[in-house]
């Protein structure tokens, strides 16, 4: 049988396969390049970048949970200038899609960061709207239509690059936010970011994370992510990238049946650095076994009751 076609096209950007490393779990690819060529991945969403360098939160920044983790890294990153001058040129030598993930404390920060990236050869910009809006008392941008809308609008006018808005699940109705960013010119949405959680050490009565609370990711969030991807893909007309708890090829197929055009894998890489590579092989085998020619044929093909 002929090899199934794993490639996907997301708002004009061609990915050789639908598996993208999730922002914040893969750095700038450098470390995993020692284990396997980065070319094997469909793409890499780089560590969240801000206008200026950030030191992040006080450790501990991670706690284990049943089937997952909580993290509170606090966006530690070298800043967009270092990303552009150092990390991006190295990554762009590799044949894989490079996505810049950006975050900001103000609308101006987002716009300036996006503007700087507009002159580079980064393939796509992902907007992380799950970080605090400093001027609005620290609530995250992505929990209100107004916040999500403002950030998308500012970035849209700052860059011609395809933009993908990364949605937070910590909202009452994620489809409302998705529709708001679609209306402001988002080319795609990616979801979900982490779910807010907390763990307490019962011996010390202290939260495990120094930040007290943190974001839940890993297999524990997978069904929530599948549900939200399904709801959002039914609510918008732009591509949806499915993220949250994906561990293997079967999870990728499930997420794509729910409506994802591509996926991102994060926490699974901590458990097994080869997880994305194995998952790509498993997806290919699933397609061959089921005589499906193109991965894109399964997108949104769930048959709801």
């Amino acid at each position: 049988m002929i090899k199934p076609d794993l490639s996907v096209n997301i708002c004009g950007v061609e990915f050789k396969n639908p598996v993208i490393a999730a922002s914040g779990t893969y750095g700038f690819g450098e470390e995993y390049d020692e284990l396997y060529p980065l070319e094997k991945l469909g793409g890499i969403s780089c560590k969240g970048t801000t206008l200026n360098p950030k030191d992040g939160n006080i450790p501990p920044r991670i706690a284990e949970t049943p089937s997952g983790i909580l993290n509170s890294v606090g966006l530690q990153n070298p800043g967009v200038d270092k990303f552009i001058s150092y990390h991006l040129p190295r990554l762009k030598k590799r044949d894989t899609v490079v996505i810049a993930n950006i975050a900001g404390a103000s609308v101006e920060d987002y716009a300036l960061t996006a503007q700087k990236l507009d002159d580079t050869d980064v393939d796509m910009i992902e907007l992380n709207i799950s970080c605090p809006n400093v001027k609005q008392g620290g609530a995250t941008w992505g929990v209100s239509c107004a916040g999500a809308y403002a950030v998308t609008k500012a970035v849209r006018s700052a860059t011609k690059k395809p933009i993908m808005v990364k949605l937070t699940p910590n909202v009452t109705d994620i489809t409302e936010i998705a529709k708001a960013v679609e209306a402001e010119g988002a080319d795609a949405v990616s979801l979900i970011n982490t779910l807010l959680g907390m763990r307490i050490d019962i011996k010390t009565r202290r939260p495990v994370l120094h930040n007290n609370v943190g974001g839940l990711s890993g297999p524990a969030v997978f069904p929530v992510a599948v549900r939200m991807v399904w709801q959002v893909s039914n609510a918008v007309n732009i591509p949806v990238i499915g993220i949250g708890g994906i561990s293997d090829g079967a999870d990728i197929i499930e997420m794509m049946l729910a409506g994802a055009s591509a996926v991102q894998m994060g926490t699974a890489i901590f458990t097994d650095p080869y997880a994305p590579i194995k998952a790509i092989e498993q997806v290919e085998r699933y397609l061959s076994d089921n005589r499906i020619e193109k991965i894109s044929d399964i997108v949104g093909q769930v048959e709801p009751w």
Partner: protein
Amino acid sequence: MSYFCERYPIIEKSSLSADIYSYTLLCPNVAAEAQTGQFVQIKAEGFTLRRPISICEIDKQKGTIRLVFEVRGKGTDKISRLNVGELMDIIAPLGHGFTVPDTLDGKAIIVGGGIGTPPMLDIAKKYKDKCTAVLGFRSFDRIILDKDYTKAGAMTIICTDDGSYGIKGTIASPLDEELKAGGVSMIYACGPTPMLKAVVLTAERYGVKCEVSLEQRMGCGVGACVVCACTVRRGGSKEQVLRVCKDGPVFDGSEVVF
């Protein structure tokens, strides 16, 4: 430097005290690359995060490494159920290890606290009688590797918090006495953070170079996620946040901001 993520056969397992296990793995590619002070990330079946454990001994000829760890919680408990003949899934060797030159001008002092004792055994094997190991434990039944350090040729001083063996109290006063005697050119330390802090202050007082191995909760273990932050002041410049897993776990004591 490169690292691997593979499953390696366990060729030896023993228990050193209640809840402390020693494992030897046959992993020639890891042993060939490994340096003293580096660590491995062990997969605990059924858990999301791997457990960071220091490399205790490296045998490049035999292609083996030894790991010694204490069962603290559920993950290390799971790992400790692995037996000889089974495979251990590790990412290794990871991190930046100790500086262990072939010759030292003076003596070396090794300071180990509890389960911080293992990673410096190869240093003792290298410097033999040109080194003193000051090892502190909670009590007699918690003592590990004392015979290994003695066998390596190091002059070994044991302290216990409750005085059930050796010197009663912490490593502080024997360390101070060794330094007072002079001729020490390097201190290597691993153990609880308050102990490391005390060792660094003492080393500074005597003007002796000191390297410490830090602990922090980790995600990836390879340098990608910046979960394992520690604050360091390097070359007199301003504070920077580095990664324990890749920039450490071993740091120059004088640069660590405790």
